[in-house]
């Protein structure tokens, strides 16, 4: 029996190894992993990594405002005299937090609704769920998120709520599509014939088959949610200053283009950096699950 257990463990590592092999085959995936990890590390350890952590809070030093990039301030300073690099590092914090909050709300909701809708697609419950989801998808997410945010007081919290409100249907749709096709697979029939409960079939038989797709989408969505959050902030409906939010920093700094380009361009690059990282990572995860 112990030999068997050892074998089991071995097969498990094989499984992971295979995924890792598929993943690491493309150097782009590894770059993506590195970028994503670097942003996460910067976000988590911002107070230790940022050269001037106090610049993320209430700080002004007008005497040193708008200094171009230099050795003291790699990314220069902004109109308050704050270190742009430090604020950008803190910016990752807010961006990733936004992604984390939104996705942790949206993924379970969307997934469960999608499973139910797909599993009961012929019944009214499935139809109603999909009809409602359709309504939220009938408009580009940014437009609806903008209008909902505009109806609320602009704040990071409201932005997260608005984005979450827009986002769940994408998971519902994904799960709906997967569930509707997987539920016609013979292994689901077999489980039904045996008498397994609908709950078991949805969560133990069907859901594992959607795991890869969900994981891929979640990773890619980290980038998109950050983008959407940044877009909201850019218009002025997202996180509010002095929060070092990347979108807000870009928008605020845009006033000083082109003379003090570093105030907006470095945070803008930072946004692109995160999105790039999670995009590459997402594609890698997709390869890992599909390859």
């Amino acid at each position, binding site marked *: 029996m112990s030999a068997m257990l050892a074998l089991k463990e071995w097969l498990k590592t094989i499984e992971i190894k295979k995924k890792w*092999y*598929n993943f690491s*085959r493309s150097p782009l995936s590894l770059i993506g992993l590195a970028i994503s990890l670097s942003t996460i590390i910067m976000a988590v350890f911002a107070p230790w990594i940022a050269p001037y952590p106090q610049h993320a809070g209430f700080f002004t030093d007008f005497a040193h405002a708008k200094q171009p990039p230099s050795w003291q301030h790699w990314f220069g300073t902004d109109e308050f005299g704050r270190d742009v690099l430090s604020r950008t590092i803190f910016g990752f914090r807010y961006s990733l937090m936004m992604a984390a909050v939104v996705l942790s709300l949206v993924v379970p909701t969307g997934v469960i609704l999608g499973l139910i809708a797909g599993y009961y697609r012929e019944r009214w419950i499935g139809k109603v769920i999909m009809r409602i989801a359709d309504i939220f998808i009938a408009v580009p997410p940014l437009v609806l998120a903008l209008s909902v945010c505009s109806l609320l007081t602009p704040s990071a919290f409201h932005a997260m709520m608005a984005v979450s409100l827009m986002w769940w249907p994408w998971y519902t749709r994904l799960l709906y599509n997967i569930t509707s096709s997987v539920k016609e697979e013979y292994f689901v029939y077999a489980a039904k014939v045996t008498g397994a409960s609908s709950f078991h079939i949805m969560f133990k038989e069907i859901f594992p088959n959607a795991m890869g797709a969900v994981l891929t989408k979640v990773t890619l969505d980290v980038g998109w949610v950050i983008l959407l959050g940044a877009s909201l902030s850019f218009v002025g409906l997202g996180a509010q200053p002095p929060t070092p939010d990347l979108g807000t920093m870009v928008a605020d700094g845009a006033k000083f283009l082109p003379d003090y380009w570093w105030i907006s361009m470095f945070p803008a690059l930072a946004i692109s950096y995160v999105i790039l990282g999670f995009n590459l990572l997402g594609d890698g995860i997709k390869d890992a699950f599909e*390859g």
Partner: protein
Amino acid sequence: MSKEVLLEIKNLHVGYKTHMGVSHVLNGVNLTVHKGERVGVIGESGSGKTTTMKSILRILPSNAIIKKGEIFYKGKNVLEMKEDELLNLRRKKISMIFQDPTSALNPLFKVGQIMLDIIKYSYKLEDEEAKEMALKALKEAALPDPERVFDSYPFQLSGGMRQRVCIALALIGDRELIIADEPTTNLDVTIKAQVLNLLTSLVREKNVGWIFVSQALGAVRENVDRVYVMYAGNIIEWGPSRKVFSNPLHPYTQKLLECVPKLTGKEFSKGIRGRIPNYFKPPSGCRFHPRCDYVLDECKKSVPEAVEVEHEHFVACNLYRR
């Protein structure tokens, strides 16, 4: 035999590059087709039949690597042919019927569009003439209402009709060799019989060379002059059809024939143990040795040479050496 040799495959080694490494699929395939001869190739799924056939026309997938070997068509090596020679070969000399008619026909084009393209590039004809030619071929393939078929998308046709369309394609012009790669696998029993009857009668009528690849041993037995048995990228036995089927020599061939259920309902075998080898690390020596009941020591070491056991009946097995 003094018959003119049409096609000769010599010691063909083909592999595939995949993310798991290189698979060594064909392991020295030798195959000869004479003019007007009907040759069968049998073997389990994955034994490399399609790979061999595609090599002949050089239409292997892009990840395939031809490692060694020659394919002579009327004495010219196909693998060294120039672009225009190759196109000429494909356009005028050899045609192929694919395994799965559904995936072989581009779903976004009407049957007629595909046929016209093929005819136009092969024969430089005007639309009118080309269409006439296409309709003639469709009629020959026993398709009722060829005009309608010509104007249909593949999905609008049944599986049997699709395969007939593929046969019609293969019949355009006067070919010297028709390769039929499991032309009936995905069809219903009754349709299978129909398609096979059609194909055999056409081949007979036109007296062209024919390679008939199939897993349906019965169908092969009934319709070919000579048969090649393929196992894991090797031709392990070949000879006149009657001889091979009535007196199989190789342990694999013997087992394979036993496995086929009989209409007479006699007890049939327990199958062949094990499965077809992994091509990334194929067994040394005779690739069948891990599954063979009569395995000898030398089987593990070297690939057995072919021996002519009876007239024109060859087998590559150590049991028959000396």
